[in-house]
């Protein structure tokens, strides 16, 4: 008994200061890739090197639309090996509310050799189907102020959150990092956030994928069993974009192919900081401790 206490006391506090302090990530860590769109000479080698199709392109009429989908990226860095215009950063906070915002694209005029001759200015058309209609636009300044007050009060008086984790087909990589949130290092309970054993107790479903054919019904039932208001966070390259498995005879692909998703947390698997960021973002608390 005294031994246990003594060991705990001598260990001290090991919990990260995140999100009040920036995430502690090795400079060697591979986080989100960054593409230098203006210097990108040719999308073909990187697209060929990408195992998941996160980097892709379409040629038409002497033009090329090159596209990078962070949701599908497994952060392997093979594109950066193949193309000097792509650099791996160690940025891990990638969570987004909007699936389309994870996609970046550019349009190029093509040379005769099929390489990019010139970047066409302006936003490139991004073909994507948002999983759920975007939030209604704020119409009046009063409403906007109201929303800001609400968000601020959430930050300060944020209530507890109960999460039910659902593995709908993952390789277990995401689960390793999610389990890490309960460790003394990330200690998600300091935010009043708990993992619970039943969807009936949950406010949030944290879902990993790709959703397999055999788990599709179980996932739907779990979603239906979660009382409203509820939100869904899709985790990992497979959960956000299908990952390396994509859609095949045994998988339905990303989580939003089966149930509506509120926040996407890319990564393969996402770093625990990235998971914290995504979960806190879903409840508007990612600025916690920073104000």
């Amino acid at each position, binding site marked *: 008994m005294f*031994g*246990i206490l003594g*060991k*705990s006391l001598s*260990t001290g506090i*090991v919990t990260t200061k995140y999100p009040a302090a920036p995430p502690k*990530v*090795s400079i*060697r*860590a*591979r986080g989100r890739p960054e593409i230098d769109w203006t210097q990108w000479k040719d999308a073909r080698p990187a697209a060929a*090197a990408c*195992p998941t199709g996160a980097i892709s392109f379409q040629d038409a009429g002497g033009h090329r639309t090159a596209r990078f989908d962070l949701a599908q990226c*497994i*952060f*392997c*860095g*093979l594109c950066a090996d193949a193309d000097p215009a792509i650099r791996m950063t160690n940025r891990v906070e990638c969570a987004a509310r909007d699936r389309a915002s994870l996609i970046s694209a550019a349009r190029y005029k093509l040379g005769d050799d099929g390489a990019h001759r010139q970047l066409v200015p302006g936003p490139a058309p991004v073909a994507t189907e948002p999983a759920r209609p975007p939030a209604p636009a704020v119409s009046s300044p009063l409403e906007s102020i109201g929303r800001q007050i609400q968000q601020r009060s959430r930050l300060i008086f944020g209530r507890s959150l109960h999460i039910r984790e*659902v*593995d*709908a*087909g*993952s*390789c*277990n*990589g995401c*689960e*390793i*990092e*999610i*389990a*890490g949130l*309960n*460790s*003394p*290092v990330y200690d998600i309970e300091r935010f009043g956030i708990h*993992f619970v*054993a*039943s*969807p009936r107790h949950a406010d949030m479903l944290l879902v990993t994928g*790709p959703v*397999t*054919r*055999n*788990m*599709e*019904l*179980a996932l739907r039932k*779990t979603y239906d069993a979660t009382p409203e208001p509820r939100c869904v966070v899709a985790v990992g390259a*497979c959960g956000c974009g299908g*990952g*390396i*498995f994509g859609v*095949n*005879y*045994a*998988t339905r692909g990303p989580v939003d192919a089966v149930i509506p998703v509120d926040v996407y947390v890319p990564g*393969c*698997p996402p*770093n625990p900081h990235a998971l914290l960021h995504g979960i806190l973002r879903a409840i508007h608390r990612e600025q916690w401790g920073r104000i």
Partner: protein
Amino acid sequence: MNLDRVSPDLRPIAEDIARRFGNRIDAWDTPRPNEVYVHASMDLAAGFCAHLHRRWNVRLIAVFADDFRNEGGVFHLYYALAADAAHGFVFLRAPVSPDTPQFTSLANAIPALNWQEREVQDMFGLKLVGHPNPRRCALHDDWPEVYPLRKDFGLHTVLPPFQGERHKFRQVEGEGVFQVPVGPVHAGIIEPGHFLFSVAGEPVLYLQLRMFYVHKGAEKLFEHLPPPHAVRLAESISGDSSFAHATAFCHAIERAANVEAPPRARGIRSVCLELERIYNHVADIGAICTDVAFVTAHMHAMRLKEAVLCACEELTGSRLLRGMACLGGVRFDWDAGQIALLRALTARLRPEFDSLVELIDGSSSTRDRLETTGILQPKVARDLGVVGIAGRASGFDHDLRRDFPHAAYDQVKISVPVYQAGDVKHRLQVRVDEVRESFSIVEQLAARLPAGPVRSEIGELPAGRVALGYVEGWRGEIFHWIRTAPGNRLARCKIKDPSLQNWPALSEAILGNIVPDFPVVNKSFNLSYSGTDR
């Protein structure tokens, strides 16, 4: 028949096979000195396996099929056997005609084949004859009549959605007998599977397992990816064994291409495999404690695991060692600073780990819950072919690192912990011993990592080659068997995770134990669902 290529250790077995079965063998193939293929008809299989087992203590490690109809008009059935003492593998390859697509079950004599034979039946449509329980296993009962690993089945075939459970579990009846269904969505942060307990009061009378909820078509997908991309897929077979699976796959490709990874790369591979072992073992040791309500030990274990994961990130750019494996070696070399970090890690973790073990050993209530709980008898373990940690805790003295040295394991001293008791306590003890052994291996390798390149060039794969890649992952032995196709592709990739072999043992180990002990018994095996289901 020429046995000159066969390694000297394996040759006596090959000669015995030739003597005993020579007139019934159609052909021999020895692509590598420790990998011998015997081509013969299927009716030889039972006698062949039985004889090799009795005479040479050879064990069956896998049964799988391969659709060879496009090339040779038949399916092939492979019986893969490991001769641990002779450090070699013997394969029996038997043709199955598409006109009579059936094969004889050996599961009555070799219970270890129960699930594997049924998987062949499900995925290839080869009907089992004489199997004690020939129901579906890999494909659930509501799947239409499709055979996904046949070549004429497309990867992107759209199947009707899952409508509901149609599986008929066996009924256990009697006064006061209850059925307790659990899953597929479990209470903890773990993978999906279904357990059906039949209980009378607290003790478990019978446990039925239902897996393959996370079947993702991985083996089929391998046939559609260029090998460098397939390495990334191999990392996603079982997340906690990312590096082990990817390395087993690379090993298979390298053997098919007759290329060996350079010595420095092999050293780095071994270090990474040991890091993977350490972080998983430490996490399991903690999780076993938490399942008997000793949460403090779990928290300390999580802290140590985190230190290893951070070191992995520093060494490979990924906490789970992803993106590190590559064909012909490893992707990133380590500088002196990183090797110093490795040595500092083991120096720091050794006393911390000892203190954790002391904490657990000092808790009599924890010991009381772990000792004699979930016993897997050595005889049962042998019959079911249980491997890895669970095998070593139940008296099976084996370890690919020692018996089939791969990566740089021929360069280090390894001792293999083996216990006979087979309870949770000893599965924990195997982990404790192995973590200490891993510290020692990492230190040995870090002290004298050979200089030189970390990657050998692998050109386009020659078509029509077969090769077995093997790695002792933290959970047990991992095999990737490949057959190459023209155009730098794979015609088949068979993945054998130790979990597939070990799951049925859980049903045996839990018998007579109380339901509240199931989590700790399950955790002491800690089998991969994704690795099983693929």
